[in-house]
């Protein structure tokens, strides 16, 4: 029997990325200065981004789909990798964990995300998810000598495994019901056989919601996020708060909108309380946080709540708004973490919000940047945060969820308090402790990118919004 290699062109970005990861792993053995590895990985990711353009198509018996939707998410992942690597070069040196594996693990995790984004089949989805999850578990515990990092890794691992068990169970039920794991096949099977209100199908949807809810840190399943974000190294927290979350949304979008499209009413009914609960928990608990990483963890939970609105609208416009929101979220979130990393210097942890008192006096530029990111996270107009929220709200109201938008808007007003508190500490308090910033070229470069992105998208968002709309057209 002739063995005929399937058309690999859609897989080119993944393949090159894997090659890159392996090369980085090998080079790590040869060289001492680990910064070079960072440069290589960044250059590699840039090359992969270029290959992304020509790689649309379906392969492996449509288990792997590379369309506009997946390439937009891959773009988010690449930006996430580059920015995370930029801010971690000096950081892991300070934390004395300057090992080469750090970069390769990041690359492996990105590969996992890319596979998840292009998964047309539940099995491929599971594999991508596990690849991302496993590498992120290790990254979470990368600072071996710090108990908090270990604890973070352990918790992430335990609950991650727990949720992937649920995922598998969900997949097995779907497989049992529809006899296939291919998303399109499932959809056609459901619509033909009229399984609309079959309970076991709903059960599987619920199990999948639990698994994906865990990944995007939605409310009842968010408990891991604060501890892991606080314990993990800050650069990894930044990486984790964008990458896996965006991948979770990609998968959530594709599975629910393609496979379970005919039971839309049910899963929307499930997601609405989830979204409200997420926004509530994220915004309200953040009010009483004193550790800035923990506060940003809850803020990222809240932002997951807003992005969920995009899924709830359950139409292409909603998905486009969700994608746009996640891209903007990537920039402003990593920007904020970059400033936190700048505060982390030799003998100074820089974790508590009180360390930011009087920052505007000691380091006016750092304070100004943090101010921009805080206002963007709140969603005040000239910044990109507002554009993200606006697009989500327009699509949500368009789909008739005005009351939900009012709730979201009230929560974003509540969120203003804890973001403003940081600005207030920086600008309106006298500096208690002298903070020496560990500025390094890559971190500054990352800050420049994120600030420019936040302000430019804030004022001229048509490029990004257009890109999101184009990406969703083929969905």
């Amino acid at each position, binding site marked *: 029997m002739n063995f005929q290699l399937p058309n690999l062109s859609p897989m080119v970005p993944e393949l090159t990325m894997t090659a890159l990861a392996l090369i980085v792993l090998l080079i790590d053995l040869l060289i001492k200065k680990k910064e070079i590895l960072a440069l290589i990985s960044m250059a590699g990711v840039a090359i992969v981004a270029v290959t992304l353009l020509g790689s649309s198509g379906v392969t492996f018996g449509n288990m792997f789909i590379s369309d506009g939707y997946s390439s937009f998410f891959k773009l988010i992942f690449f930006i996430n990798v580059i920015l995370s690597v930029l801010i971690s070069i000096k950081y892991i040196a300070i934390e004395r964990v300057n090992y080469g594996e750090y970069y390769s693990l990041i690359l492996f995790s990105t590969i996992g995300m890319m596979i998840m984004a292009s998964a047309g089949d539940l099995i491929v989805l599971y*594999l991508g998810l596990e690849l991302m999850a496993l590498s992120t578990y290790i990254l979470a515990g990368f600072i071996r000598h710090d108990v908090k990092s270990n604890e973070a890794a352990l918790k992430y691992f*335990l609950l991650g495994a727990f949720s992937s068990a649920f995922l598998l169970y969900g997949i097995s039920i779907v497989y049992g019901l529809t006899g296939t794991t291919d998303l399109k096949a499932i959809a056609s099977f459901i619509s033909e056989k009229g399984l609309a209100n079959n309970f076991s199908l709903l059960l599987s949807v619920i199990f999948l919601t639990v698994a994906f809810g865990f990944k995007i840190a939605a409310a009842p399943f968010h408990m891991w996020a604060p501890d892991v974000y606080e314990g993990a190294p800050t650069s990894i927290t930044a990486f984790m708060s964008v990458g896996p979350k965006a991948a979770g949304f990609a998968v959530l979008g594709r599975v629910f909108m393609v496979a379970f499209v005919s039971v839309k009413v049910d899963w929307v009914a499930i997601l609405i309380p989830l979204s409200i609960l997420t926004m509530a928990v994220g915004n309200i608990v953040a009010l009483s946080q004193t550790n800035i990483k923990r506060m940003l963890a809850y803020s990222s939970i809240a932002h997951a709540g807003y992005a969920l609105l995009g899924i709830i609208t359950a139409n292409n416009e909603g998905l486009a708004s969700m994608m746009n929101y996640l891209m903007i979220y990537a920039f402003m979130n990593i920007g904020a973490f970059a400033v936190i990393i700048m505060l982390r210097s030799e003998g100074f942890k820089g974790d508590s919000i009180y360390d930011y008192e009087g920052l505007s006096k000691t380091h006016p530029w750092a304070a100004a940047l943090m101010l921009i990111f805080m206002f963007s996270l709140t969603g005040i107009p000239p910044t990109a945060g507002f554009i993200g929220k606006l697009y989500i709200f327009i699509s949500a109201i368009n789909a008739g969820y005005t009351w939900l938008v009012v709730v979201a808007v009230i929560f974003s007003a509540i969120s203003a308090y804890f973001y403003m508190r940081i600005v207030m500490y920086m600008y309106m308090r006298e500096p208690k402790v002298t903070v020496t910033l560990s500025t390094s070229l890559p971190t500054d470069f990352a800050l420049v990118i994120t600030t420019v992105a936040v302000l430019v998208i804030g004022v001229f968002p048509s490029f990004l919004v257009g890109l999101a709309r184009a990406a969703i057209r083929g969905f």
Partner: protein
Amino acid sequence: MVPLSWYMMLSIAVFVIGVFGFLSRRNIIIVFMSIELMLNAVNINLISLSHYLQDMRGQILAFFVIAVAAAEAAIGLAIVIALFRNKATAHVDEVKEMQG
């Protein structure tokens, strides 16, 4: 011929045991084992469905699950050892440095 529902019942039983094991046991290793238990419950389910549906997918997924479970176990143990080196504890409920 053993009817499919029996397998399903077995799989649910094992899964539930796994869940309760995960939630209640104090020793980390036991918790790991209960995760493995849950994964194997899923495998049972997959294999029985695959046989019932006369379709290969279930079994392929089962293989992948086993492979991934192995990898997971390796990483899990590595994390536990790292934690043990710093905090000499093997009990999950003592690992609560971060809260609130």
